[in-house]
């Protein structure tokens, strides 16, 4: 069959809501789009551990510390699921991580913001994981099977993330004046970056139309953003916090994406450091396993 016929049959399968599996024929552009989107998603989970990791040793109680560790560990797991799903497209995790460390790969702009207070941990769980859930639920039905299945597993875990964040905000909202102020300032800091997580306005979103046709994406950026606002505003009201008024500053989004956010350098530097300090462990584990295998061969 020639490429045009294969492409036509591929689109027909997508239109019939069938799932595409790793060994099925797929257009190169579909594969490239998925590798880009899924690896960016995996990187976001991993880099996303850093702003919250900042508070693990300083969590206000042992209970909060255990919860935060479990949450950050989940994010590491999400990264692992997603790298694994991306590898089904014929790339290696190693190569993807190299790209991230070289500064050649993107991850969600939200993780380039700092977490100066404990309330930021509440705001991240509530707003950032909340926005992530809004983006991720439709991905559970995306046309690429391994991505959709990974997303089902991730979405099951996300609800805890959002609720523990809101629980932190609740405790602060019911606390002293200083605690309420801290909660309000965290909301002020995270509101706009959280809204930017849905991507540029529909009119400026260059990949959207094709991704919709491939059913990688099912709702537009603006549609998901509108829905997130609709759900979140009453939650803020319940906390007695004021949602910031105004417009999204898209030039800030561009700046952060271009590498000029408050923590871009710090994040990549932290990942590089972790990767380099873990190198001897990875090499030693591999060498040990090889040695055991050859010992076993000799014993036979």
């Amino acid at each position, binding site marked *: 069959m020639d490429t045009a016929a294969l492409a036509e049959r591929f689109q027909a399968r997508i239109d019939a809501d069938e799932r595409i599996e790793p*060994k099925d024929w797929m257009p190169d552009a579909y594969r490239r789009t998925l590798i880009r989107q899924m690896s960016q998603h995996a990187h976001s989970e991993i880099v996303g551990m850093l702003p919250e990791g900042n508070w693990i040793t300083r969590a206000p109680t042992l209970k909060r510390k255990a919860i935060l560790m479990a949450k950050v560990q989940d994010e590491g797991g999400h990264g692992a*699921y997603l790298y*694994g799903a991306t*590898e089904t497209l014929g790339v290696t995790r190693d190569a993807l991580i190299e790209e991230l460390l070289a500064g050649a790969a993107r991850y969600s702009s939200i993780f380039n913001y700092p977490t100066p207070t404990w309330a930021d941990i509440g705001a991240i769980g509530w707003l950032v994981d909340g926005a992530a859930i809004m983006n991720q639920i439709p991905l559970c039905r995306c046309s690429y099977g391994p991505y959709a299945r990974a997303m089902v*597993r991730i979405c099951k*875990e996300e609800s805890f993330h959002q609720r523990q964040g809101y629980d932190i905000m609740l405790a602060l909202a019911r606390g002293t004046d200083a605690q309420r102020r801290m909660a309000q300032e965290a909301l002020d800091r995270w509101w706009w970056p959280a809204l930017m997580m849905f991507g540029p306005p529909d009119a400026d979103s260059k990949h959207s139309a094709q991704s919709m046709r491939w059913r990688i994406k099912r709702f537009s950026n603006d549609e998901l953003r509108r829905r997130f606002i609709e759900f979140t505003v009453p939650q803020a009201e319940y906390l007695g916090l004021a949602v910031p008024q105004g417009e999204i500053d898209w030039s800030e989004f561009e700046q952060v994406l271009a590498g000029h956010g408050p923590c871009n350098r710090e994040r990549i530097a932290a990942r590089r450091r972790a990767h380099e300090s873990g190198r001897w462990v990875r090499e030693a*584990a*591999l060498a040990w396993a090889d040695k055991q295998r050859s010992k076993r061969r000799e014993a036979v």
Partner: protein
Amino acid sequence: MTSSNDWPLYEVFIRARGGLDHKHVGSIHATDERMALEHARDVYTRRQEGVSIWVVRSSAIVASDPSDAEAFFEPARDKVYRHPTFYDIPDEVKTL
């Protein structure tokens, strides 16, 4: 293929409860079988999602080719008599 410093890839299968089959859940990198089991436990069963795990080197899996699927599964298509609905049994005959 995997680059030299990448750990080998294993596919992970989990039995959610006694009485169910093991089901493929994803993959994991590890240096050997034992580490693959432990990493699979840490990554895929943080909330008691399983009572048993299988891991197998991804390179050891033999799979049918989707582009041959039609020819490969074709022989079963015209054997409709393998299904109970193929047979017309009079209504008077019960429990059959």
